[in-house]
Structure formats: structure tokens, C-alpha cells
């Protein structure tokens, strides 16, 4: 792929803290390499802002390998930018042309309050996990792996669900701000495996209850979540969670 440099206009959401109202600020960046990642472009801009004595843009990042799920940015009207199955660190500047204007804003969700600028608090996901996204195991030595037979297709489906990185792109892209894809991936992963059976019913009921408590919206099956998920988590997990929820709701005695 041919290398080129570009000058860009950035419209970035600036917000001092959770309580303050935010607004867009316009920045000019020059000589950005097409081989940079989007985050590296922000690094360049922030160095420039710090040199000028201005407030740099706060954004979340950790691994820069596409697996941490910290980069809660809505870029040019899409979760994690214009590429599919992608995170912001893996979004390269070759996705843009010289002279482009790019709008960058944080995830917009009542359940993900903005901490500062482009950083959001995804603690709601942690609380959903604490409500049931775990298994109970005895302490002591690890059990021999082959002592628990697992069907290959169940193992594969559980692994696919487990590839969810909890980035919140599903919530961000959903017109209703629903967290069903995230929660269903976590429910599916454990419901498919023998280790997840003891808490199978209470897990789905508690996780869904916590999800509703956090103020996420409802699923109306638009499937925008699947289209924007960086890990390609399937909406078949949502159907599985609906099944689990119905079954658990009918058989629970609480």
C-alpha cells in the first residue's frame, strides 16, 4: 500500500468531567502518515497541544493490540471508525484522505458516563459481571483437562462468545443503547460449558436484572451490534440468552 502524508481537521468532543457539559473543539493536524494508527495520530496532536501549553485530549488506551477494548470512540459516525471488526488502535490513517474532517466523540450511553473528553466509565459492565459472570470452583490443584469431556462444537461456540473484549461498541452502535450482545456473550460462554452449569439459571436472571438496573436500552433486533463488534460476536448469542432467560424464569422458584 502506498504511503502518503495528510493534513486533517479534527472535531473532538471535549468535556471536563462527568458533570460538566461538553462541546466540540476543532483541531488541525499536519503531516500525518498513512501508516500511523488513529491513536498515534492523537499522540502527535497531544504532543503539539502540550507544547503549546493547551489541554491535551483525554482518551483511553491500553494494549494497542486490538484486545483491551478501552478505546471508547465514535469516529465519523461509526463505533471505532469506518472499518469493520476493528478497534481504534487498529484503525490506520490510510482509512482517511488528505483534507478530511473527522468527528470524534465518546460512546453515548446513560450507563457509560463520560469521565473526561473521550474516556467513558464502563463500570456498568463490571457490575453485570459481578452479578453472575463467574463460575464457582473448588480451590486446590487444577483438574486434569481431559477429565471433563466437552463437545467440539460447544467448545468452539463458547470460545467465540469468550472472544468478547467488553469494549461497549455494541451499546454505542445500538440505536437503543442496549447491552444485550455483551451480556449474551458472557452468558453463552458459561452456559455452553460444564463448569458453568451450577449457576446457569441464577446467572442469566441476575445478569439481566443488573443490565436493566444500569439503564441500558432494550434489544429490538436491529443487529447493529453484530455489525460493529470488533470481535464479530454473533447475535445468535442474544437468542441463546433469551432461551436461557425464558427457561430460567419458568423453572426458578424465587
Amino acid at each position, binding site marked *: 500500500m502506498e504511503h502518503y502524508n495528510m493534513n486533517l481537521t479534527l472535531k473532538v468532543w471535549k468535556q471536563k468531567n462527568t458533570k460538566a457539559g461538553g462541546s466540540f473543539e476543532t483541531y488541525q493536524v499536519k503531516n500525518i502518515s498513512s501508516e500511523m494508527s488513529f491513536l498515534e495520530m492523537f499522540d502527535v496532536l497531544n504532543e503539539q497541544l502540550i507544547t503549546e501549553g493547551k489541554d491535551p485530549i483525554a482518551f483511553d488506551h491500553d494494549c494497542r493490540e486490538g484486545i483491551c477494548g478501552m478505546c471508547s470512540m*465514535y469516529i465519523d*459516525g461509526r463505533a471505532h471508525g469506518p472499518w469493520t471488526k476493528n478497534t481504534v488502535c487498529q484503525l490506520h490513517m490510510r482509512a482517511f484522505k488528505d483534507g478530511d474532517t473527522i468527528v470524534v*466523540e465518546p460512546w453515548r450511553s*446513560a450507563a457509560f458516563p463520560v469521565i473526561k473528553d473521550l474516556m467513558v466509565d464502563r463500570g456498568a459492565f463490571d457490575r453485570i459481571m459481578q452479578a453472575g459472570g463467574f463460575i464457582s470452583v473448588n480451590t486446590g490443584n487444577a483438574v486434569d483437562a481431559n477429565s471433563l469431556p466437552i463437545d467440539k462444537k460447544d467448545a468452539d461456540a463458547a470460545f467465540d462468545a469468550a472472544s468478547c473484549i467488553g469494549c461497549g461498541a455494541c451499546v454505542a452502535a445500538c440505536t437503543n443503547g*442496549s447491552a444485550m450482545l455483551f451480556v449474551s456473550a458472557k452468558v453463552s460462554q458459561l452456559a455452553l460449558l460444564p463448569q458453568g452449569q451450577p449457576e446457569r439459571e441464577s446467572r442469566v436472571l441476575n445478569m439481566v436484572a443488573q443490565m436493566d438496573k444500569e439503564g441500558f436500552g432494550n434489544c*429490538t*433486533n436491529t443487529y447493529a451490534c453484530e*455489525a460493529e463488534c470488533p470481535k464479530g460476536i454473533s447475535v445468535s448469542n*442474544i437468542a441463546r440468552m433469551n432461551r436461557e432467560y425464558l427457561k430460567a424464569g419458568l423453572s426458578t422458584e424465587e
Partner: protein
Amino acid sequence: MGLTGLFLITFLVVHVGVNSCIFVNDGGETFNTAAHFMSHNWILRIMEVGLFAGLILHIIQGLILWKQNRAARPVKYSANKASQNSAWYSRSMGLLGTLLLFFLIIHVSKFFVDTKIALYADGGANDASHNLFEEMKEEFQKWWVVVIYVLGVISLFWHLLHGFQSAFQTFGINHKRYTPIIKAIGVGYTIIVCLLFALMPISFYMGWIS
């Protein structure tokens, strides 16, 4: 939402079936016999109450969803290319449903209420002379009534196109082999039902049925 939706979908089969009797083109004899049965049989009269209950429940569920989903995103995106990740009609079920509700108010206030008046006013004195086929024929001579009906059917088309298959996902039915079949049946159902509904006012207006 899915349960009441599928219930209303089954009702539409009956509705379109009875209405299709006009295509026999026998001066409304078959249609009026069917319509008479629908409005006089006591089992159907009881089911009618269930139908309205289902419709009202569907509307209430929709309103609750709309309220909760709006609250879930207090600050809107300033740039949002939603068309790149989902179909417009799947995101517009509330809007399409509202259009349908307006249409239903117009629709029910004419044909349904007139039938009830004939049945109950003056001790049912006008029941025998009430001719629903003639009433339809007369009503659909007005071009603006035909336009309202066609617009109503268009709203119904997009609402059903998403709603039919969406209901199954809500019930947890998502299967490698069966989901494509369900989706195909949904598309077929939507096209056939909407085409038949749209053809009624058009056929009367064009004079294909007399």
C-alpha cells in the same frame, strides 16, 4: 412485543383472507357472507375482544420500549452513520407503528364502527340492509381514501418485514438451518399480505371489481 406481534400477524391472515373474497367478483356476495359470519358468530365476537387487548398491549409495550430506549441515550451522536450497520426500517419500528396507529384509527372509525352501528343501533334494525361490500365500493371511489390506504399498507409492509423475523429471535429461535427459512417465510408473508391489502382499494377505484 414479539408475542403480541405474532398474535397480530396471525390476525392479519384472517383479515386478508376474508377481504380477499372480494376478488371472487360476484357483486360482493361471497365477501358479505364472510363478513356477516365474522361480525355475528359469538365465538368470533369474544375473540375480537382479545384482538383489541392484544393490539393495545402491543402499543403499550412499544411505548415503554420507546421511553426506556430514549432514556438510555440522553446525549445523541452528532455524527451517526447508522445506515452502515443496520436497516432503516429495523430502527424505525416505533415511527412505522405510530403511522400504522393513525391509519388504524381512520380505518376502524369507518368500516368497523359502521358495522357495529348497524348491529346495535335501533335494536339492530339496519343490520339486514347493511352491505359492507357496497360501503367499501363507495368509500374507495375517493382518491384520497385510496392514497391513505396505500400509505397505510406501505407502513405495514416495512413494519412486518422487520417484525416477523424479529419475533422469533426474541423467543430465542436462531438456528443455522431454520432461521433462513423463517426469514424467507416472513418476507413471503409480508409481500403477499401487503399486496392483497393494497389491491383492495386500488381494485375498487380502478373499477376492476363491481
